[in-house]
């Protein structure tokens, strides 16, 4: 019987977990999934995580906010002309305030949406290999690899200091 299998390892400390990830990446399994009970720069660095795509959402939202504010303020001024104190119909200084506020509002909302989309939240199926310990005091590393390579990856995980190494039930 062959095909991909998943190996689950648990670590008691952050640096051991990060160290195992660095070694695994050079050994090239099919995929590595990591569960961490705490946000960890160390592990993020080991995974080789790229800059967050949420940034693009915020930028787009902010620009959209400024454009919407311009449309709202200029549009309503043209629609209903109010001459105040001899100033032009479209007087931009107070519009800056609206532009700023809508930029913050749209930027903030798109940041939340971008986060939810990229984090795939809410999730109704729990990822394979998860154990409640990984929300408690243990770090989890799940390695997906070919059946034939499994002993090699198991020994890499043990050498990196894994407490337990086991197979995920297929």
């Amino acid at each position, binding site marked *: 019987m062959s095909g991909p299998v998943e190996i689950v390892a648990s670590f008691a400390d952050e640096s051991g977990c990060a160290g195992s990830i660095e070694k695994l990446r050079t050994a090239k399994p099919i995929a590595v999934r990591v569960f961490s009970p705490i946000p960890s720069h160390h592990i993020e660095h080991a995974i080789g995580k790229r800059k967050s795509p949420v940034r693009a959402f915020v930028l787009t939202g902010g620009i959209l906010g400024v454009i919407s504010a311009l449309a709202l303020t200029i549009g309503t001024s043209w629609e209903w002309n109010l001459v105040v*104190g*001899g*100033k032009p119909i479209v007087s931009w*200084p*107070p519009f*800056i*305030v609206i532009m700023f506020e809508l930029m913050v509002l749209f930027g903030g909302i798109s940041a939340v949406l971008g986060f939810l989309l990229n984090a795939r939240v809410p999730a109704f199926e729990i990822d394979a290999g998860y154990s409640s310990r990984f929300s408690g005091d243990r770090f989890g590393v799940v390695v997906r690899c070919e059946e034939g390579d499994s002993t090699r990856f198991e020994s890499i995980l043990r050498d990196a200091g894994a407490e337990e190494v086991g197979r995920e039930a297929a």
Partner: protein
Amino acid sequence: MSSEPQIVGTAIQGRTGQVPAVAGGAFKALLVVLVLLGIVGFGLGLASGQADRAWQAYLVNLLVWLGIAQGGVVLSAAFYLTQGRWLGTTQYRLAEAFVGFIPLGFILFWGLYFGRTLIFPWVLHPIPQKAAWLNTPFLFARDGLGLALMTVLSLALVRLSRGPQAAAWQRDSADIEMPPREMRRTAVALAILFAVVYSLIAFDLVMSLAPQWHSTLFGWYFFGGAFWSAIVATAVSAVVLRARLGAHNAFRNPTVLHDLGKLVFAFSIFWVYLVFSQYIVIWYGNIPVETFFIVHRVYHMPWEAISYAVVILMWVAPFLVLLGVRPKKSPAILGTIACGGLVGVWLERYLLVVPSLSPRAIPFGWVQLLVTLGFLGAFVLCSLPGLNLTAAAALAEPWEEHE
């Protein structure tokens, strides 16, 4: 008392065998020449019928350089209040480096007494409704008292901060203890008094030059600008010291320039925020007695050009250029923006003072140039001891590559 310099000194001697001086003899001689040029220029200005320009230049430069020196000590106080130890003792020595100019600035403030008839329009043409506030004895009494308090408190803070107890706290960033009790008290007192006294200075020495005009936020705007000018001055000093002190000094750490760049960026936005807050209120009200101050500076040449230059140097350029991480970490880019910021602050103070007094003057001439050079020389000369301490601290806490 003055034991900290010796402690730092011995620490350096242990590492490199000598305490380096930031400036050589030739540079000091140049600074002395600048000071002499300033004195001669001021004297010639008075003698050649340009007394008004000489006194205006004197006031502008006093506001600029005293603002930087005082803002630096307030920056150090802000570090204590926020318990900032991202650069150990070096960040405190850096912010306090310009303290030497504060006593000189206090003395120079009294010089304004002799030019009062040329500086303050209300001395020769009193405004009856405002005479209770705008009169010579009261103005010099309250501003003199305020600046005396600031001088004493600033010197006290710097002396405590350079003392062994505070230095031990600055160094020990792993420890989450609060700063020493007397540091906390002095820092709070100084920060509050800075806001009060520099608002007073703004109202009395700048706003009263156009005695019909008023803006409640002006004081805040003025001391916010002074605080920012100190931040850009520390950024310039950090970039210069980084290059001068060799390969192993605290300023070689790119995160240090990043942090200074963030401060320059943030308080530049704060400054423009205060500009806009005043502008929009005056724009909405559209009352001639309020708008003339802005109309004269923004719509009439030559002041129009200076107004745009100030906004570009103090906000547009720092904002756009320092938006990213990499420009903040680059000494060349951060240094250029910070130097531009110093020029911007000088032009801004000039723009606040001179158009009120000489509405149609040609902006610059040799009198202004020489007086400015004189103040620059005096400021750097007064700051050299502080910069030497900064250099010693930066060498005592060198940046380790693997940190």
